């Protein structure tokens, strides 16, 4: 499942050639040359077959051996080597797919590098020189943007922005620290003679330090996907890896310019220019990204009639933001990240369900494909003796320094940050963060861009970078998971918890979440509220379609989804019984929703007849699966009424079915999984039950009271007990700790929110889809309760 979406990349490696064009894109000069050479070297003979993997949107893969007409065109270009590459990739990915357990031990990226080595070996063996390398152009223009756009588009925004301060500290100050210490450390050791005789200077060391210091987003995602760490930790490392590009680009360019100038000409002016350029590059890049995000949002607002090409705009404009920033010498990665981050909310709201799905899937496809290719090429690039220069001192010292200084840097910065943070970062988080500072292809791309004439030791730097990348990705990637498990196990109890302890632990979790919400610790911020208000009033009005704006209300969405769930299960029940005729015989309260609320349902409720799509872009079938009750375990175990089996059952039940608290939610970003969050369903279920219980208590309270009584929302005297009938109060106190008045006013407030929303839209439309009636009839309890309240309130 994890690899299936990347498989498609193989089948379309060379669309240009597939179309029969004899022109080769500039991006692949080496491939073209190689194929030309090969055609002259090797004999004739058409390739026997081409393997194709086809992948449809449902995620299933079909293999089809195809004797395509374009195989002859392929032969014409004699791209046997391309076939080789593709073939091996396919086979290995199939193998990996089969060995899913393997990927839980060794991260995919490490495996891909291994494959790259093997492939590189094959190609080198066939060719006596390395025909494929990861050229900077290909990497920076064709492979990297998709990955970063995917990262930005799926970024959990709330988490990102609430930790923005810490992320910026790590990205800017942390990277500068790493660059400076590594560069200076290496320079010191060179002066001390540890590296022997190499033609290098302080500036070159600093440059090398700056490019090796950057944490790589591709590698981070690849490794952290296997290791499930908590959200905050993940967003720290991930955010840092994305934002540090601003610093890396500036440092790289500055030191590159300095090296060209020569050491003598550097004075304070140049250094100040360098610092200013950081601000310009970073903020300029972000600004470009934001401008393009605005553009995309506006565009999706107006594309009602051309929905079929909406997805294309997203990708084109995203890529355009990257290119524009690059053209203006600003930070391209920052630009595309912010483009993705800022536009996600609006385009998800504006676009049609199917377009949104398309964008999400295609984005994942591209990102996965790019990542795969990047890692394989990283492996292939190593098998090239021309590039390898070995200098024990340099290489080992680099490894040591980046490791050690990363730890020191992270711990230092965290210590400073913890003084200002509400929730401090724990020790284990800091360890994981330091250990997770992986270097990857970005560093390699940068080092490959160095000019050989200015940098005599370029090959040494390239070799070192490659070794650093392998070390971090493979070694640290493989050992990350055991390290995390080991560190956590040390703290937890070894003995098995009793039932009471398990239940109580979960209760504590829920309690803590509730208290946090009450005390408003997380999220109650003046600036944030201000931004929220501004955004709701102006930005949404400007950037979102009018119909999208209406359906944004959260409670309504939950209510709507619950209704859909109920309706679906109702229909299922009906189908099981043979027909839906029984629906019409129900004598439930037939509420004319339209008349009551004067809302335009057909406009607000998204088209639920759309193929399998729910309002939150969640396939409804997955929601349905939760409705089917599980088999009662107790029944099956009746013959083994032993204490142990009961014990086991109880423990097992608790394990499976206790609601997880909010804190246990895993990070929601994943390269290859687009599933619906189980947490959402859980949240909806809890919300529904809370509402129902409040409704129940309200209804039962109402039954015991004279009908003329008004609901009191203001308490006149605070110490006088409530005026409810005494007979029921003791009963009620069991279920409703704060009394009936409290219950009904509580219910009222929560429904007021919903009602306020409903009374906002002014028009009245006569058309009421038939399905709405079914929904209403099936959701009798809640609806009749609402009606009761409304009758009371509106009269």
């Amino acid at each position, binding site marked *: 499942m994890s690899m299936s979406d990347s498989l498609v990349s193989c089948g379309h490696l060379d669309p240009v050639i597939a179309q029969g064009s004899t022109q080769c894109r500039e991006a692949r000069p080496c491939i073209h040359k190689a194929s030309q050479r090969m055609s002259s070297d090797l004999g004739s003979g058409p390739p026997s077959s081409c393997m194709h993997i086809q992948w449809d949107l449902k995620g299933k893969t079909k293999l089809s051996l195809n004797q395509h007409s374009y195989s002859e065109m392929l032969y014409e270009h004699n791209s046997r080597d391309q076939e080789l590459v593709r073939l091996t990739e396919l086979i290995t990915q199939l193998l990996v797919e089969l060995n899913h357990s393997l990927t839980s031990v060794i991260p995919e990226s490490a495996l891909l590098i291994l494959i790259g080595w093997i492939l590189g070996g094959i190609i080198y063996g066939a060719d006596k020189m390395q025909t494929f390398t990861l050229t900077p152009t290909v990497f920076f223009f064709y492979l990297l943007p998709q990955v970063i756009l995917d990262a930005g588009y799926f970024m959990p925004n709330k988490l990102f922005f609430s930790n923005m301060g810490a992320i910026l500290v790590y990205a800017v100050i942390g990277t500068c620290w790493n660059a400076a210490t590594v560069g200076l450390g290496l320079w010191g050791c060179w002066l001390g003679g540890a590296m022997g005789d190499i033609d290098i200077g302080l500036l070159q060391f600093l440059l090398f330090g700056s490019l090796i210091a950057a944490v790589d987003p591709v590698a981070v995602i690849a490794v952290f996907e296997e290791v499930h760490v908590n959200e905050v930790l993940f967003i720290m490392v991930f955010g840092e890896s994305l934002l540090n590009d601003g610093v890396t680009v500036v440092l790289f360019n500055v030191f590159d310019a300095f090296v060209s100038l020569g050491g003598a000409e550097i004075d304070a002016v140049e250094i100040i220019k360098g610092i200013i350029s950081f601000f310009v590059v970073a903020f300029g890049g972000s600004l470009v990204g934001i401008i393009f995000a605005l553009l995309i949002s506006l565009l999706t607002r107006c594309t009602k009639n051309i929905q079929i090409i909406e997805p294309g705009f997203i990708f084109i404009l995203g890529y355009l933001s990257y290119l524009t920033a690059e053209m203006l010498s600003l930070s391209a990665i920052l630009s595309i990240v912010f483009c993705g981050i800022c536009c996600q909310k609006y385009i998800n709201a504006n676009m049609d369900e199917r377009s949104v799905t398309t964008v999400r899937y295609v984005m994942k496809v591209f990102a996965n494909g790019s990542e795969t290719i990047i890692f394989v090429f990283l492996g292939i690039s190593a098998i090239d003796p021309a590039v390898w220069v070995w200098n024990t001192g340099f290489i080992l010292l680099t490894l040591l320094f980046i490791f050690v200084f990363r730890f020191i840097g992270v711990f230092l910065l965290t210590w400073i940050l913890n003084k200002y943070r509400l929730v401090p970062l724990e020790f284990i988080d800091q360890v994981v963060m330091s250990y997770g500072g992986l270097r990857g292809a970005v560093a390699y791309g940068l080092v490959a861009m160095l000019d050989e004439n200015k940098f005599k030791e370029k090959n040494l730097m390239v070799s070192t970078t490659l070794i650093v990348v392998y070390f971090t990705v493979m070694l640290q990637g493989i050992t990350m998971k055991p390290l995390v498990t080991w560190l956590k196990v040390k703290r937890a109890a070894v003995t098995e918890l009793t039932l009471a302890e398990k239940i109580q632990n979960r209760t504590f979790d829920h*309690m803590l979440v509730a208290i946090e*919400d009450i005390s408003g610790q997380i999220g109650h911020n003046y600036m944030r509220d201000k931004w929220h208000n501004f955004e709701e009033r102006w930005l949404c009005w400007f950037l979102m379609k009018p119909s999208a704006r209406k359906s944004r209300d959260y409670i309504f969405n939950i209510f709507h989804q619950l209704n859909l769930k109920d309706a679906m299960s109702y229909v299922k029940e009906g189908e099981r019984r043979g027909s839906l005729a029984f629906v019409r015989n129900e004598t439930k309260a037939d509420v004319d929703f339209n008349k009551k609320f004067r809302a335009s349902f057909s406009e607000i409720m998204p088209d639920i007849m759309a193929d399998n799509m729910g309002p939150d872009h969640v396939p409804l079938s997955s929601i349905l699966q939760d409705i089917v009750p*599980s088999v009662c375990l107790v029944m099956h175990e009746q013959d083994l009424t032993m204490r142990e089996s009961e014990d086991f059952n109880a423990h097992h039940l608790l394990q499976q079915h206790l609601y997880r608290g909010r804190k246990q939610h895993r990070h929601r970003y994943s390269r290859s999984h687009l599933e619906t969050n189980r947490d959402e369903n859980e949240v909806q279920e809890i919300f529904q039950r*809370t509402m129902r219980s409040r409704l129940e208590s309200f209804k039962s309270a109402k039954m015991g009271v004279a009908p003329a009584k008004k609901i009191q929302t203001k308490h006149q005297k605070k*110490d006088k007990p409530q005026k409810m009938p005494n007979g029921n109060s003791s009963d009620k106190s*069991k279920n409703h700790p704060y*009394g009936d008045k409290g219950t009904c006013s509580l219910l009222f407030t929560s429904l007021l929110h919903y009602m306020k929303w409903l009374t906002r839209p002014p028009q009245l439309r006569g058309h009421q889809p038939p399905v709405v009636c079914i929904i209403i009839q099936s959701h009798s309890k809640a609806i009749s309760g609402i009606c009761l309240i409304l009758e009371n309130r509106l009269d």
Partner: protein
Amino acid sequence: MHIVIKLFGVPLSCPITNSMNIWFSCFLFIIVTPAHIVRLYDRFEALDKEKTGHLRPQDFGAINRLAMNPIGDRIIGAFFSPGQETVDFHSFVRILAHFRPADKKHPKDPSMPEPVNSRTSKLKFAFQLYDQDKDGKISRAELLQVLRSMLEMQVTEEQLESIADRTIQEADLDNDDAISFEEFRKSLEKVNIDHKMSIRFLR
């Protein structure tokens, strides 16, 4: 251990009665620092939309996220003493002070009253969440209620009852088919209550 009042230099624009409450709570050794009191007061005011100086259940109900908590309603109830319909700032802080991490450095002084955030007090708070009728014992029915709210809807009644029975069996030492506070405390002696029931901001 208690708030040094002279550090409390932040002016509060609140009616005189409430500020009296704050000083009063200082004297009661509610161990919350001045900065936190200010923050909590801001929150209290934000919740108290009608500016009466007291909070009522519907003010808590306005917090949407509580509706998504299985024991949200119980926690709201815990803020209100039996018979009271409102909670003032003093009680608000007092309940929240339960969640402060315990002060390990200062030795326990037997002459002073039990601090609010000690292990015993925290356990008492948790116990009261279960024990709605305040008879000092968690009966089977009460346990069933809590379990029902914390388990997914898929779980059937029989499964629920079996879990409740087994839980009571494990914890009940005097065989009265209910869990008293002592039994409750004993069953949780291995659990690090301080870690589990503390919010780090209330440091």
